[in-house]
């Protein structure tokens, strides 16, 4: 009887803490994907896709975009699997790709939004009777107002539960930078929410 490969693969969240034999199995799985094995590809995908999708959704706030980002991440990852040297955990390597994909798209969106804002700046009247936003809306706005680096760190740490070591590996910065970014992000959030009255 053949044991399904997925039985050897721990949940994506625990990849870094897995036993050495699990790592070996993931290495074998990667080799099989490089050789064109769809089943191995699906197993690798099933292991990591939920967490990749979750992060993509948190960062984009849109189900359609999260879907596209996840697809793009795996297509890119599979096409570059032969370049994966195993220096970092596979999950770290994969998350670097999703972070790049989302950041590029966000930069492009912001640039387009700025151009639209400039074009439409004239003739816009601000409604005086705008309803008071609720706390959830205020939080969303405050998080979105953070710079990319702060926003990414806050979402990954406080919302998605990544450790500082994981974030540092994914973003390619020292752990200390990660901690200071989180602290600055929280301070800015606190400041933005200070005026909120419940």
């Amino acid at each position: 009887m053949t044991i399904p490969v997925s039985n050897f693969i721990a949940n994506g969240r625990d990849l870094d803490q897995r036993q050495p034999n699990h790592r070996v199995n993931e290495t074998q799985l990667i080799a099989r994907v490089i050789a064109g094995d769809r089943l191995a590809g699906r197993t690798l995908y099933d292991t990591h896709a939920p967490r990749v999708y979750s992060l993509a959704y948190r960062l984009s706030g849109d189900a359609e975009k999260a879907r596209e980002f996840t697809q793009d991440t795996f297509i890119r990852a599979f096409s570059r699997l032969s370049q994966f040297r195993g220096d970092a955990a596979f999950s770290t390597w994969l998350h670097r790709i999703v972070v790049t994909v989302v950041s590029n798209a966000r930069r492009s969106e912001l640039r387009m939004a700025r151009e639209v804002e400039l074009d439409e700046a004239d003739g816009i009247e601000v409604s005086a009777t705008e309803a008071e936003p609720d706390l959830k809306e205020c939080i969303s706005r405050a998080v979105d107002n953070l710079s990319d680096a702060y926003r990414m760190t806050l979402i990954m740490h406080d919302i998605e539960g990544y450790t500082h070591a994981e974030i540092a590996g994914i973003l390619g910065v020292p752990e200390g930078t990660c901690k200071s970014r989180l602290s600055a992000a929280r301070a800015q959030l606190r400041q933005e929410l200070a005026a909120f009255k419940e």
Partner: protein
Amino acid sequence: MDENRFNDVIRELPRSFNEPPPPPLDEMWTVIEEAHFDAPVSISKPRGFASRAPWLAAAAALVLGIGLGRYLPRGANPSELPAPSAIAANSTTPTPDTSAVAAAYRDQTNRYLGQAAALLISLPARDASGKTDATFATKATDLLVTTRLLIDSPAAAQDPKLHSLLEDLELVLVQIARLHTEKNKGDLDLIHQAVEQGDVLSRLNSAVATTQSSE
């Protein structure tokens, strides 16, 4: 908002900020599987171009061989060459001049970047006839070979910006190379989207400017 309330807000963030729905795993996999495993131009083996274009691989090997030959000590008989351990131990062994190699690499990169930029700029928004698709697909396949050679070159490894640009170009070129197949017609929108999202054209322009200024 006081300190305690703010701490509650942070604790509640996973439930209050963009809580994700269940991931559409099967739906996403269908797209990934089709893009990767069904691709006529294999993107699972980026370096396996030799099987598709053996003449090009032979030409590349020949150029590489001539290049290496020019930098080997002249008049050396293979039987007279010192053993590798002896070379390692001899610290006074002269190192070959690599400036000509670097210049050749720069020229090649510059030419390649120009061709890639020209291809992306001339890519039509839509093509009803399908004839243009085939032309672009052929050009993209040719450029893919150079892309992969450049990605694997040590010089690209020393330039992370260029390396990342080459990787993104590889992905775009693979998509263009697939245009000639019937089921991938209509992918032009996706290609333009990928070029735009990855800021590929402006990065290409900037890379061309950089390589030209370093000449």
